[in-house]
């Protein structure tokens, strides 16, 4: 069943175009990952799906009554705002104690409910954000670089958690990630975005697609490689001339 259908979506910020005629759909219970260089419109796409950006052209259609859980890129909690994890999880529509316990359990941080949000470590914080996204039993989980600022072990275990969540709750997952090695193993489908959809398909298909290789290189089997390219491959309708540096392992 299709949860979200994006059709010919274009988003502009003033003269700069962030997304050009992007179409994609998310089916229930699949894990889809969006990869793409900085400034390729990944976050804009997610924000358009949650309704934070009203698109001028194209459409975003969500299944009726869909519950969406959203984990933002980073959340800065002002030090002047005291709030416990428990209180945070109740925002904005309330939650029962058992829902809170269950969500924290699913997110892998069962003991944090009484802690102050500002006292959590980066990894704990991301898991609490995940717990909040899980509270209303979402059909679709949206993650915007949810492991930013975590070390490699932290982010690997975070993605394992996501996988477990999908198994336990059957929700679909749409995530943005920079960590290609994780993405390639954990996703059912990968969408390579660079203002437009460059290519999409199973990880194996995408990894061998020329557009993907042009963006991320071919991978060098574990060795550290630094790719740098002037990005002007053959899609002439979008002007994106940025340097792109990607560290691959």
């Amino acid at each position, binding site marked *: 069943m299709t949860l979200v259908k994006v059709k010919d979506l274009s988003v502009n910020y003033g003269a700069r175009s962030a997304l050009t005629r992007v179409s994609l759909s998310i089916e229930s219970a699949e894990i889809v990952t969006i990869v793409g260089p900085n400034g390729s419109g990944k976050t804009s796409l997610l924000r358009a799906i949650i309704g*934070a950006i009203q698109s001028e052209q194209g459409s975003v259609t969500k299944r009726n009554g869909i519950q969406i859980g959203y984990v933002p890129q980073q959340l800065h909690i002002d030090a002047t705002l005291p*709030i416990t994890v428990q209180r945070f999880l109740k925002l*904005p529509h*309330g939650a029962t104690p058992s829902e809170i316990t269950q969500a924290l359990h699913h997110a892998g941080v069962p003991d944090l409910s009484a802690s102050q949000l500002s006292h959590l470590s980066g990894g704990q914080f991301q898991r609490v954000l995940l717990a909040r996204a899980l509270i209303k039993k979402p059909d679709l989980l949206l993650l915007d670089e949810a492991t930013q600022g975590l070390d490699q072990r932290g982010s690997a275990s975070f993605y394992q958690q996501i996988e477990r969540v999908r198994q336990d709750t059957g929700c679909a997952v749409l995530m943005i990630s920079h960590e290609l090695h994780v993405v390639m193993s954990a996703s059912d489908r990968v969408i390579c975005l660079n203002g437009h959809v460059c290519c999409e398909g199973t990880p194996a298909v995408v990894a061998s697609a020329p557009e993907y290789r042009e963006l991320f290189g071919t991978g060098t089997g574990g060795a550290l490689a630094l790719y740098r390219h002037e990005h002007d491959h053959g899609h002439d309708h979008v002007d994106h001339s940025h340097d792109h540096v990607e560290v691959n392992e």
Partner: protein
Amino acid sequence: MFDDFMVRATFAGIGVALAAAPLGCFVVWRRMAYFGDATAHAAVLGVALSLAFSISIFIGTVAVALMMALLVNILSGRGYAMDTLLGVMAHSALAFGLVAVSFLSGIRIDLMAYLFGDILAVSRNDLSIIWGGALVVVLLISWRWSALLTSTLNEDLAYASDLNPKREQLVLTLALAITVAVAIKVVGVLLIAALLIIPAAASRPLSRTPEGMAFTAGFIGMISSVVGLRAAYIFDTPAGPSIVCVAAVLFVISSGLRLLMPSEK
């Protein structure tokens, strides 16, 4: 019992403290202190216009404060840093207000009463306006509390929960305009922002939840009003500034408490 001017003044102070507490918390959390200042300063212009057109001062100040706040919302993000924009708006509004007042040659008005408040002259009618306005602000903020809190934490989280953070911003703007209008008689335009910010800031070290902070701020605001008025009576000092002084002392005490229990909050 409202025949005694001290009783009326005390209740006026408590009414304003109740409205200012939850609103002040949002002003602190959202870093809107300057915004509060700008809105309050615009109220002088509202006073002048109300007198010129002989309409209710409450209506006039709410309208001008609201227009000021909306103007800031519209102009923000158009080339000037927010604090520059607010600095321009706050002081221009005050200056235009003072100039406008000077045109009102036919009417004798006591400018000092609007700049620093005149809580001892609060009438029964003023008192009902203050409590009416305070009630509206408290109800408005309680009604939108969760949505406001979510929008304050992160706008995208709010959108993802089917809320509109822009609408919540308008709710706060409206609450601020009403608070300014009811507080003008109590502390005057120059010290309204103090009444918003100081009790909220003083309650921060003593709170673990947003709700706790709002209630504590209300309590601190009420103590400041009562003690400040009493002190003004005993030492024959100006009432509005005395209230703010007590709030400031309470802020210092609560900050000291925070140092004594560093790991707790």
